[in-house]
């Protein structure tokens, strides 16, 4: 192609651009543009969250622009997505951060551009946000303490029904990774439920969310405490490990096992009668609430610092 043709092409393109609206301006009658940035795009939990957000956006007449990083942890890449969205001139950002500390710096640009930030799933570090002067409209997250208390209380009730008069109920707790916010909240919820029901915690150990580790830990704890009546697991994957350990001792069905997350394998275990309860965290509702809150923030409404997402107890009756 000759250079002169190039110039004509470029000039034509520039004229087309210049002839149209200079920039998408927010205002009356225009659809709002809101960004959803998340992580772990292959994780069903986040896929459900995205679906919930998209449905809510359609319902409210909002343009939702979605981007995610494939891993749980690629902080730098997620920061790039934040910059991309700002350059696309979105009006609000909903974000599930890969790093609760690292996301603060890239989000400062949003503050400068007066783009409200709605934080979902994993809470942005409040100290870091305060130091750097980042304001978050609201945090929308599952109440892990409440969820663990709910499923823990359900397990304790089942145990109490099987106890003989004068017998004290005893449970084991399988914890997630110590020091991580959701793991600590679930552990506290389990402990509160056991205490309220007057049931003793015979043993408590971390199995780092893993099934195989839960099998090993449960076997070891049951060897030391052969008379336990239940195992409270901080996620369903660990509950599957606990089921395997209990099966190996021939006590399946006699020991109450509960988990958290409501994954497919847990539902199957409940159908078989191996497991007795779990918690649905409603990721779809979290996504939908994200869109709602972003819209409210755009309209200048003030939001509470934390917007809890209700959790739901799932029992074997629910999956039949």
């Amino acid at each position: 192609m000759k250079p002169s043709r190039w110039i004509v092409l470029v000039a034509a393109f520039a004229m087309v651009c210049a002839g149209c609206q200079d920039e998408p301006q927010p205002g009356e009658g225009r659809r709002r543009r809101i960004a959803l940035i998340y992580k772990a795009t292959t994780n069903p939990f986040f896929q459900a969250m995205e679906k919930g957000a998209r449905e809510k956006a359609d319902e409210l007449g909002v343009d939702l622009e979605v981007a995610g990083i494939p891993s749980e942890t690629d902080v730098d890449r997620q920061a790039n997505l934040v910059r991309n969205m700002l350059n696309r001139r979105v009006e609000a950002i909903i974000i599930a951060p890969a790093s609760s500390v690292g996301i603060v710096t890239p989000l400062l640009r949003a503050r400068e551009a007066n783009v409200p930030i709605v934080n979902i799933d994993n809470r942005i570090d409040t100290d870091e946000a305060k130091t750097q002067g980042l304001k978050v409209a609201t945090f929308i997250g599952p109440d892990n303490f409440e969820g663990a208390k709910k499923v823990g209380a359900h397990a304790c009730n089942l145990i109490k029904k099987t106890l003989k008069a004068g017998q004290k109920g005893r449970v084991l707790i399988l914890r997630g990774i110590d020091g991580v916010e959701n793991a600590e909240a679930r552990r506290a919820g389990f402990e509160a439920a056991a205490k309220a029901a007057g049931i003793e915690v015979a043993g408590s150990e971390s199995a780092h969310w893993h099934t195989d580790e839960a099998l090993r830990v449960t076997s070891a704890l049951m060897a030391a405490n052969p008379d336990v009546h239940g195992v409270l697991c901080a996620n369903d994957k660990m509950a599957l490990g606990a089921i395997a350990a209990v099966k190996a001792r021939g006590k399946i069905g006699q020991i109450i096992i509960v988990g958290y997350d409501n994954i497919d394998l847990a539902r199957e275990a409940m159908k078989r009668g191996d497991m007795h309860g779990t918690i649905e965290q409603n990721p779809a509702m979290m996504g939908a609430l994200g869109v709602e809150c972003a819209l409210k923030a755009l309209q200048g409404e003030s939001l509470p610092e934390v917007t809890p997402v209700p959790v739901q107890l799932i029992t074997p009756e629910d999956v039949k």
Partner: protein
Amino acid sequence: MADLRSRITLGRAVVLVVALGALFILFTVLSAVDWRTGGVHWPFFLRWDNLVDLAGSCAINLTLGVGMTFVIIGGGIDLSVGRLIALTHVVLVVVANATGSFTVGLAACLGCGLAAGLANGAVSVRWRIPSFIVTLGMMMVARGLAMVAAGGKSVGADIDSPVVVQRFLPIAVSLVVVVVGHVVLARTVFGRHVFAVGGSPEAARLCGIRVGLVRIVTFLASGLCAGLAGLVYWSRNSLGDPLAGDGLELYAIAAVIVGGTSLSGGRGSVVGTFLGALIMGVLQYGLDSMLVQPRWQWVIIGAVVIVTVLLDRLKRSD
């Protein structure tokens, strides 16, 4: 400058510049269209903010790529650089937090990169272990040490990078690295020795070149670049993340290869790497800003790497 091996061939340069220009125009046009309404507006891809962010997003790969160019031309490979970013920037954050001095942190960060580069080079030269193996080991060591230094979790930096630093330091660092790398490789005696060593170590030895030393220095250069990339990482994120940098060594190697440097050593250029890294950077950034899902991005970027090399091969066999 008489050495043709160190110059990017005209054909290769044309292919790369055309590819880069085509990508740029493609994303500009795509960014001008509102896909929902079919309306057209000023392309956001051409906005100043966007161009700055685009350049910033290329910085890490550019910086690593220049170091990698030296190592590969010298006949080696450095698989450790991705994980070294994690180690060097975690060291920067931890040391700066502990001493309250950014300068001390930066010195520790660069020192750490140089030390790792020295270890890579010295072990592979002294005991004649292929650098693939030594740097593979170093990749794991660096990953582990980053976790150790960070105490097993992300560390927030007490000294945060202001928005201006966040946006422009990556660009400045990578441009300086590219210019210095180009001058050293193409205009100095040492640069010529690197080509000689990578082309034929035996011939280089007979010419009186200290082959081992030259190779060690190429690994030092790569380690230093990993340290500088650690600085860039800090400036972009104000965070010490021990899981950072996963797989970035492969991106750097891809940029070097797209840029026309021969994997068997002795032939290549920093200019080529510069263009190669820009192509990959524009592609990834552009796909991200068009909201293309990551699963398709892998397919597209991989295909572009193959096609660029293929085009060059076809052009050469004409």
